[in-house]
């Protein structure tokens, strides 16, 4: 193809270490600028919106605590996605796995699976976390199995499973577990709550009203574990190899079927744990709207972090802020818009990592 513009694009192997960070940050900034233009076009004042966005998320310690609360599920889901994406498995089903995890965790209280009056709090909460992970991983198993055995497009399967999981939850909260006809369960007893800062307001007055709960610790621990798996373990090496070059991995004798299912299940377990932290740490009941598209934002978080577990922490906090601020902001689709543009710019900027772009003077055709 004749290149009509004066640039030369050349494939490059060695990319500077700082370049991915620069392009990611640049993509986010550019996304905010483009969104501002769209906002201005709809008649809103982008400066007002953004200053409100900042105040609502980083303006005070209380607001920041809310941000971390929102970042917790994003962190867990983003980590799960980053692991799956590394193997080029498109688990878009975190939303569904999140709901099933929340459902399994709620079952501990609602069935109830243990005697809530005599069992200690740590045991109940641990059981809820374990069941949340189990639920998420079992649900992800369906997609992993179909992908591994029948090579069915996992994106569509996981998406369909998302809708099914939400309806399954609805069946319980509208019916059997409904609290007096409302579309939610009863509030869980305190023994089923994840401890949070506000619980210690008596000892530390500054904590009063702070909703930050221990779920964030789960997220941070998970980040370290995922880091160790990916960069320090044989299994992580296998996952990366399968993702980079399937054929080579198969020749090397790596069991792709088993690893596909396994990675899907780990990814689902993290999303399920996110569902558990949300019901046990934040809303304290199972209800219809426990997720504001965490499952999808997690995808973006993972991609924006270039699949690096520690970068996922940073990006999830940023997106947590976006979610906190956009709760009260109009228009309501703004956070989706910024996320969509960001993701687009990030994948476009990847070309900068793969190719060297040089401006050249177009060769003048010698007449005659």
């Amino acid at each position, binding site marked *: 193809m004749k290149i009509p513009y004066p640039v030369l694009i050349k494939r490059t192997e060695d990319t500077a270490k700082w370049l991915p960070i620069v392009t990611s940050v640049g993509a986010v900034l550019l996304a905010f600028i483009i969104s501002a233009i769209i906002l201005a076009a709809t008649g809103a004042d982008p400066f007002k919106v953004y200053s409100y966005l900042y105040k609502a998320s980083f303006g005070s310690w209380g607001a920041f605590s809310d941000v971390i609360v929102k970042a917790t599920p994003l962190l867990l889901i983003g980590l799960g996605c980053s692991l799956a994406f590394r193997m080029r498995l498109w688990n878009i089903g975190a939303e569904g796995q999140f709901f099933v995890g929340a459902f399994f965790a709620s079952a501990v209280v609602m069935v109830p699976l243990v005697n809530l009056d005599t069992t200690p709090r740590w045991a109940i909460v641990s059981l809820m976390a374990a069941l949340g992970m189990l639920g998420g991983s079992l649900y992800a198993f369906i997609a992993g199995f179909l992908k591994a055995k029948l090579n*069915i497009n996992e994106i569509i399967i996981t998406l*369909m499973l998302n*809708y099914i999981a939400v309806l399954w939850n609805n069946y319980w909260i509208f*019916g059997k577990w409904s609290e007096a006809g409302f579309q939610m369960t009863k509030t869980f007893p305190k023994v089923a709550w994840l401890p949070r800062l506000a619980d210690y307001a008596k000892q530390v007055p500054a904590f009063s009203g702070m909703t930050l709960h221990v779920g964030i610790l789960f997220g941070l621990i998970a980040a370290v574990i995922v880091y160790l798996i990916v960069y320090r373990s044989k299994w992580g090496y296998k996952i990366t190899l399968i993702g980079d070059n399937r054929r080579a991995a198969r020749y090397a004798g790596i069991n792709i079927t088993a690893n596909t299912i396994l990675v899907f299940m780990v990814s689902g377990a993290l999303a399920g744990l996110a569902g558990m932290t949300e019901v046990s740490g934040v809303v304290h009941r199972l209800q219809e709207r426990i997720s504001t598209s965490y499952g999808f934002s997690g995808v973006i978080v993972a991609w924006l972090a270039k699949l690096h577990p520690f970068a996922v922490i940073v990006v999830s906090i940023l997106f947590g802020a976006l979610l906190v601020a956009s709760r009260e902001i109009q228009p*309501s689709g703004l956070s989706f818009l910024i996320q969509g543009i960001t993701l687009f710019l990030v994948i476009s900027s990847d070309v900068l990592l793969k190719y060297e772009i040089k401006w050249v003077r177009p060769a003048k055709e010698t007449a005659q």
Partner: protein
Amino acid sequence: MNWTEIFRSGISTGTVLLIAAIGEILTERSGIQNLGVEGMMLLGAMAGFRVAFNTGNVWLGLLAAIAAGGILSLAHAVVTIHFQADQTVSGLSLTFLGTGLALVLGEGLTGQTGPVIPRASIPLLSQIPYLGPVAFADHNLLVYFGYLLVPVVAYFINKTRPGLHLRAVGENPAAADTLGVNIYRTRYLYTFIGGCFAGLAGAAISVAIAPGWNSNLTVNGQGWIAVALVIFAHWNPWRAAMGGYLFGILRRLALDIQGPALLLGVANPFFYNTNLVFFLQMTPYILTVIALIWGSSAARKKRIGAPAALGTPYQRGERGL
């Protein structure tokens, strides 16, 4: 249960899936997979309703929807064709982008009513017993457009020269390039056309089948079902039509089944326990999963499957397939 009504409404809701799936078939036949159908449909639904509402002219609304879907799809085209980005991630971000744009630009439209696509009956054909009232009577015009679209697109793909080029680009771009087909231009064109169809499908909801704007519930996953339908249909417009109508009918059936107290002579559980409705609402999604499982094994047996170059970027000078 009123079977005529179930089949009728199945055909009209199936038209949405049909239009979107045919667009995606054209795109995928050129080797580009665009998973952003949901986002393009939502933007199309918003643009169609907004323009129809503001101008009072439903046809302008349709044009706006087609343009909106097409323009949005160009983002996918640039990123995947020129920048060779991963088509999965790009398609997914297109859904986000379309959803975000539609929600921001659709602000304040909820609950409004606007003009809708007129309805018509086909003379003579609507007199055919059973079939007439189901397929040819009092449908909105887009349903008839769907009837025409299927044979036209099937003929185009299989029997015309540009159709041959399209298939060549999707199956073996390197060979097509040697024969002088412009791979890049072809892929841009069909990605754009696919986007136009997706936009139209979105408007088919918002100005015809379920008129109005209901934020992201307007499309509610139908874009994804359309993508699944393409796989189920083996990239064949006739099968896509069959699948689309079948889905539409089954979805309607799931709603109507709650009506009677007696079903086939036994007490109808869906009538007595209204909470079971959530399981009925799952049916389109479960059907999609089953269709994919079935489609995958059928595709294996018959060795008909995706265009060989689907999802792989083409770069001149590099070894092709």
